């Protein structure tokens, strides 16, 4: 019993020490820099030229899918008649109906199941990436701004905990690379601040477009921790923390990353 109450006091102290979960308070060392600023001039040029940027292959495909009617289901465009500008900048967000935290991919799949009577798309499938990129691209140039209070607060705390927890054989947390050592070199690369504002992004290493969760899985396996499955709730919570940390950065999707 004493041990339990001690644990409670400790938990209360921890809660008191950690900053209140409000948007914009999590910038690493105050100076928030998009992953774009860590790229070489050549890679930046590739992103800037909306024709040379291969991510737009998926945006085009997403635009076609958005208009398409499948199995007599209403198309996305038949409900979302005015487009979805600015929406991606506010994700992950709480779904009012279920109370769950959803990232953009989750929201697209939920819309398919709930309103279109279609099966959910597989994670990292070209169709889901295409729809995500098409919707995210409509928010390009708008600042990332997620809600981290109310029902989102516990998700935010869980995501922040994941970010600060050491893991894997290398015993590293996200924080140690992306807050404390951003800008320094790690093997052949410059460590970025680890923002997700360009995702889904075309990564040169992948030679294809991929989601933020795919990137996070790469980081987890990079420190030799076991990556979680795509769509794992903890990863969505982490996405929320990352978005809060990237508050104010412009959405760049589909960005080019190394």
């Amino acid at each position: 019993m004493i041990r339990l109450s001690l644990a409670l006091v400790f938990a209360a102290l921890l809660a008191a020490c950690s900053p209140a979960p409000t948007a914009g308070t999590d910038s690493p060392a105050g100076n928030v820099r998009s992953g774009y600023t860590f790229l070489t001039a050549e890679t930046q040029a590739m992103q800037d030229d909306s024709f040379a940027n291969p991510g737009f292959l998926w945006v085009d495909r997403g635009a076609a899918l958005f208009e398409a009617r499948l199995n007599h289901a209403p198309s996305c465009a038949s409900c979302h008649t005015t487009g979805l500008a600015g929406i991606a900048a506010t994700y992950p967000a709480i779904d009012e109906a279920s109370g769950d935290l959803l990232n953009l991919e989750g929201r697209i799949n939920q819309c398919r199941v709930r309103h279109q009577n279609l099966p959910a798309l597989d994670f990292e499938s070209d169709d889901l990436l295409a729809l995500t990129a098409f919707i995210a691209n409509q928010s390009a140039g708008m600042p990332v701004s997620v809600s981290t209070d109310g029902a989102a607060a516990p998700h935010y705390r869980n995501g922040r905990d994941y970010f600060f927890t050491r893991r894997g054989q290398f015993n590293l947390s996200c924080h140690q690379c992306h807050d404390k050592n951003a800008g320094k070199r790690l093997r052949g690369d410059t460590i970025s601040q680890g923002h997700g504002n360009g995702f889904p992004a075309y990564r040169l290493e992948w030679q294809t477009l991929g989601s933020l969760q795919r990137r996070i899985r790469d980081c987890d396996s990079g420190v030799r921790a076991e990556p979680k499955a795509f769509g794992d709730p903890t990863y969505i919570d982490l996405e929320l923390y990352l978005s809060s940390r990237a508050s104010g950065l412009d959405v760049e999707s589909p960005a080019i990353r190394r």
Partner: protein
Amino acid sequence: MASIRLSVPKTAMKGEIIELKALIQHPMESGYRRGSRGEQIPRNIITRFECLYDGEVVFSADFHPAIAADPFLTFYTRAVGSGTLAFRWTDQHGEMWSDSATLTVT
């Protein structure tokens, strides 16, 4: 399904040099990589690209395993008359993808 993006000017002056750009979605798997179980990933590449200006080949390229995924080409031709610019990619199995654009020369 392959997605293709083309950039062709709508109009040009006779004799003008025009810039053409073509991007196609393709994995361009080199055949040298191995999967997570150590098995060799079979080669799967586009081997030939051609651009036809009213049926005449004005630019062509042979692709080899070192070309990156989603190959992107920029090249130039002289506008000689109004017509169709057809872009054609053929992979190692003979499968072909194509798209075209119309150019009006004044």
